[in-house]
């Protein structure tokens, strides 16, 4: 008897799920909170602090979207996901968007039916090895044991890199970044490979960071960015242009400090359009005119979020590098607000 009730419930539920696929914006507004998928914890990118508040670089994107849509940067329900559960969580509608240092790849975009709305961090896969191992290049790593996080693009890049260079390696699969550090320090593997940002952050927490070197090879392109489901373009536009608003704000010099002053009206029409004092950009998205202003006030512009969470003055100490503004030789670039 139980079984038939269960199957019946599944059928009904399946039908209902098919119908409620679109209109994420309405769902979010009705719910009053944004369900944002983040990692279960990655230093600087997303982790709850001592009082349980989520903070980090990816978290900043979630908060900006919540502020743009709902006007409240705290109206976010952070749903922690692992490398394995993140895509099912998004596909099944458990979360509205995923901001979890996820690499934009062809198959994820096309085959898994997701929509990457932009890139908030340009990363690349690197290697870290103990100094005493005496390697100066990743090509010297023939026969090395490599700690590698499962279910990630790094796993695949690693295989590609070693195959292309015709050298052998032995993978040591691990589940989380924290586990990888421990395994690496305990000597379970000769080399630890993950995104270069993660390596730098990890090395910064070692007792003797100087005993470990980052090898010069960057073996992959890892454009990390937020993503949403296929099929709801209105929602995808909102997330995309919220990210672009943060980037444009940095380019135009709009910061959380001067935004109050600038939103009174300026001589620069693009600033005015961005902050909603001119034009109808918010209305086109189905949001109110102050959407971008709210998004920027949530945690500052792109550069402020970067400096606060992973920048050079934090323990993680990442330089802007590729993630500098295009005006300063980086790749961070937003289409115009017009």
């Amino acid at each position: 008897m139980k079984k038939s009730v269960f199957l019946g419930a599944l059928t009904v539920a399946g039908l209902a799920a098919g119908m409620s696929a679109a209109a994420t914006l309405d769902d979010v507004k009705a719910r009053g909170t944004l369900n944002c998928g983040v990692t279960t914890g990655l230093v600087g990118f997303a982790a709850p602090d001592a009082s349980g508040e989520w903070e980090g670089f990816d978290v900043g994107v979630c908060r900006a979207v919540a502020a743009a849509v709902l006007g409240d940067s705290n109206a976010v329900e952070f749903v922690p996901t692992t490398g394995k559960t993140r895509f099912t969580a998004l596909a099944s509608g458990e979360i509205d968007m995923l901001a979890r240092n996820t690499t934009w790849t062809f198959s994820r975009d096309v085959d898994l039916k997701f929509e990457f709305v932009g890139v908030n961090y340009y990363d690349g896969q690197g290697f870290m090895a103990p100094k005493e191992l005496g390697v100066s290049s990743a090509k010297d790593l023939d026969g090395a044991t490599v700690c590698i996080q499962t279910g990630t693009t790094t796993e695949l890049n690693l295989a590609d890199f070693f195959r292309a260079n015709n050298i052998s390696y032995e993978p040591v699969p691990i589940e989380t970044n924290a586990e990888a550090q421990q395994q690496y320090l305990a000597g379970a593997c000769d080399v630890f490979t993950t995104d270069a940002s993660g390596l730098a952050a990890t090395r910064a927490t070692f007792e003797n960071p100087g005993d470990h070197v980052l090898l010069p090879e960057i073996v992959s392109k890892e454009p990390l960015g937020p993503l949403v489901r296929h099929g709801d373009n209105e929602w995808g536009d909102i997330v995309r242009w919220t990210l672009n608003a943060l980037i444009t704000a940095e380019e135009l010099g709009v910061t959380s400090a001067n935004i109050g002053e600038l939103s009174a009206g300026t001589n620069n029409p693009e600033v005015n359009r961005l902050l909603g004092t001119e034009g109808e950009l918010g209305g086109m998205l189905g949001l109110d005119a102050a959407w971008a202003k709210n998004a920027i006030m949530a945690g500052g512009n792109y550069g402020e979020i970067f400096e606060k969470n992973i920048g050079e003055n934090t323990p993680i100490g990442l330089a802007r590098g590729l993630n500098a503004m295009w005006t300063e030789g980086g790749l961070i670039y937003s289409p115009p607000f017009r």
Partner: protein
Amino acid sequence: MSDTHSQSVAFVRTEDVPPAPPPANATGPVKWIKDNLFATPANSVLTVIALLVIYMVLSGTLPWVFNGIWDSPSLAVCREMLNGESGACFAVLTERWNQLLFGFKYPSDLYWRPALAFALLFVAAAPVLFFDLPRKILIFTGLYPFIAYYLIWGGSIFTPLLALAGFVAGGYVYQRFVKGSFAVGFFGAIAAAVLVWTIGGFIIPSSEITEGAMQSVQSRDLGGFMLNMMLGVTCVSLSLPIGIALALGRQSSMPIIKYICVVFIEFIRGVPLITLLFVASVMLSYFFPPEATVDLFLRVVIMITIFSAAYIAEVVRGGLAALPKGQYEAADSLGLDYTQAMRLIILPQALKISIPGIVNVSVGLFKDTTLVSVISMFDMVGMIRGPILASTEWNGVYWELFAFAALLFFIVCYGISQYSQWLERRLATDHK
């Protein structure tokens, strides 16, 4: 004469010689050491080696523990304070103890609620575990699940009250009709409970359910050791009766019941628990609409319960098989029907035999609750592996956190094992 006598004998002992102490090497610690540690050359060698190993372990760990730093805002400061010496950084425990115990999202001003539920758990469990206590406390045991639910999740008081009313109605109908026919009583009870829940759902205003008097806490906000305890206690107490029913079903002479039980047990035992957990967390959400998902906690409880029920069923079946056939025949010859025979003769003996096995499964199950960390639930291990190790302050602290987790789990598991040994002694009726 007396003079001569007194002079002829130089000394007469008037009292007993006090017993001399045994030679130093035949008594006390010396003898014990000689007998137990250095009895033979081989023993002596082993003793020396063992002492060396103990010294090496302790000389490594004790300074680390006693040199520990209990007050520091981050690992980096900790290392600075230690200044290169070996020492633990227990400050992570003092700063994050609440997250380890309750998870990082449970509102901190409400910690008294799960703590009270935990304290009441002992009152509720006592009459079940120790049957010398007054039977009246069992009433509290029956109410406990509803009290604990209300305390931990909060929300409207009508939810647990309505659930309780359904069970009471079901129980009443069962009592009333079971005399006539078991089937009528059983299905009547289910029908009555469902009826009460449905009617109650219409009567109670929905605003009351959503708001309620006590601040409500979402299931996904639960975490830490609290989550392990909740999963462990709920799943053990649910899987025990289900497991017994499955074991009896597997021995049933009715083919359909028998094969349903066999297939269920064999299927569940053949699938790893982690697979079931992934099904619970990931696959099921494909079938439910985004807004109407079954609570994740409930899904996990169901999966762990059916998993351990299958194992307990096999343990109980072992107990049933160990009983001599004469016991079944004796029950039949007394004219007892199936229920009476099982309740009065077979199960008390079979369960007594199964106690070590059941305890084994329960301890294993309690530790298996840490597996929920792989489906991004923040139990104790999930808290450590995720948020705490990923915070900028505490990235890189491992031993202190995992030692703390091991300590808590050890206390609980050792307690369960000691209780089971007491229970075996208490129930020992054979004369050895």
